[in-house]
């Protein structure tokens, strides 16, 4: 359903030009939970953000269900973005809006009438099991609760695709597990395709059906976790991560192990 073709994105910093994403292509099937894992600075977040064009690639195409998003005008792009949910490491809720009004926001943008908004907001809150927090402000919520509200906010627009940018990196291990179960449920019950960027093995290992390993702006290797046996990891880092998954919990840590062995 989602095809990235030859995505190139570079930034010009004080020390010259960097190709943060260098000619990356990948294909996400309908119903996949697709993981992109990599060390910090590998370009995985930038790649994720090119999908809804928060970062516009210098070249390349983003095809979502037969439409090249890079070719859309401003208005059409806004409509297309309405079909793509997104959650973030630091949640990014509107702090001066209550939980109810936060979830209402995507519907207000889309011009959904007030009565229908109410039904859909309560429905979304029920999915993340936080009906009792309707009138609370985000500052009064825990990190895990904030992320659940962010998920409800993404779901209320009934997206086809959900982008998750390090969704559990600000959370403790227990809460991480809880959020991952919510994501898995959403994928199974609501048939929403999910793309997750993370540097934590636990995240991709536990719920992803496919994983791309990203290194210095390119995809080093893609593994189909559903049929892991046929796809033996080739690169050293992938072996470390996927054969000793429990040992190497974070990619940065795995790289540290590799370097120590050199």
């Amino acid at each position, binding site marked *: 359903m989602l095809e990235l073709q030859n995505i190139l994105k570079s930034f010009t910093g004080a020390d010259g030009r960097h190709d943060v994403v260098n000619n990356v292509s990948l294909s996400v099937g309908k119903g996949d939970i697709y993981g992109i894992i990599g060390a910090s600075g590998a370009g995985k977040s930038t790649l994720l953000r090119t999908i809804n064009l928060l970062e516009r690639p210098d070249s390349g195409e983003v095809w979502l269900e037969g439409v090249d998003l890079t070719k859309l005008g401003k208005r059409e792009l806004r*409509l297309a973005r309405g079909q793509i949910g*997104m959650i973030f490491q630091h949640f*990014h809720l*509107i*702090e*001066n809006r209550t939980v109810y009004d936060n979830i209402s*926001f*995507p519907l*207000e*943008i889309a011009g959904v009438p007030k009565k229908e908004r109410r039904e859909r907001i309560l429905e979304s809150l029920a999915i993340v099991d936080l009906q009792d927090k309707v009138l609370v402000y985000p500052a009064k919520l825990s990190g895990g609760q904030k992320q659940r509200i962010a998920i409800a906010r993404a779901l209320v627009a009934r997206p086809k695709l959900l982008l998750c940018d390090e969704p559990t990196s600000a959370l403790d291990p227990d809460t991480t597990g809880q959020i991952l179960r919510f994501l898995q449920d959403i994928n199974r019950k609501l048939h929403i395709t999910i793309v997750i960027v993370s540097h934590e093995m636990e995240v991709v290992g536990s719920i992803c059906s496919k994983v791309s390993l990203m290194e210095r702006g390119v995809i080093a290797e893609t593994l189909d976790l559903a049929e892991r046996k046929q796809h033996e990891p080739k690169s050293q880092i992938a072996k470390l991560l996927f054969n000793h998954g429990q040992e190497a919990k974070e990619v940065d840590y795995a790289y540290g192990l590799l370097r120590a062995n050199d």
Partner: protein
Amino acid sequence: MLTDFFGPTIELWPEILHALGQTGYMMMFAMGIAALAGIPLGTLLYLIRPGSLAQQPRLYAVLDTAVNILRSFPFLILLIVLIPITRFIVGTAIGTTAVIVPLAISAIPDFARLIEQTLLEVNRGVIQAAEAMGASTFQIVTKVLYREARSGIVSTCTIISINFLSFSTVAGLVGGGGIGDFAIRYGYYRYQLDVMAFTVALIVIIVQIIQSTGNYLVRRLDKRH
């Protein structure tokens, strides 16, 4: 003792009330105009800043410089420079209504700059989240930026209105009246030190009331903690 203090001012009460009315009149209109022009201008500055939602680096450089130049004018000089414009708008350059023009104009760039700074404090991530949901720039401004910055905007209004109170004392120079002018005429020119002390105390109280009201509203509106 108390009557000693109020003694000479009691017969001046009607005039004090009149002066207070003039101050209120100047502040309300000047504030209204300054907010009506300053908030959109500050928002524009925020939006067209390099790297922002609708960046226009050249236009930003021009407006940025214009705001700085206007802000550097001492109020007294601006009051005189603006006389032809005031005469054109109000019909006269003298009187309470006439003072509103330079008051408002001097506050617009201050207002705009403070609003720009307030908006800059809004978390970029929240704005990007709104963009990712498909919000237009207008929706982002009205539904996210102003919402998140509302307590800062109230602070800005508090600061500007207290500035107005002090600037309006200069208004006496062009027959603008007001409480500050009253203090200068009675207390300073006529050496009625008790009247001056009384009026200054009155102004201190007004400033306190404005500041406390502002602080109260900021606390009520800020849900970020």
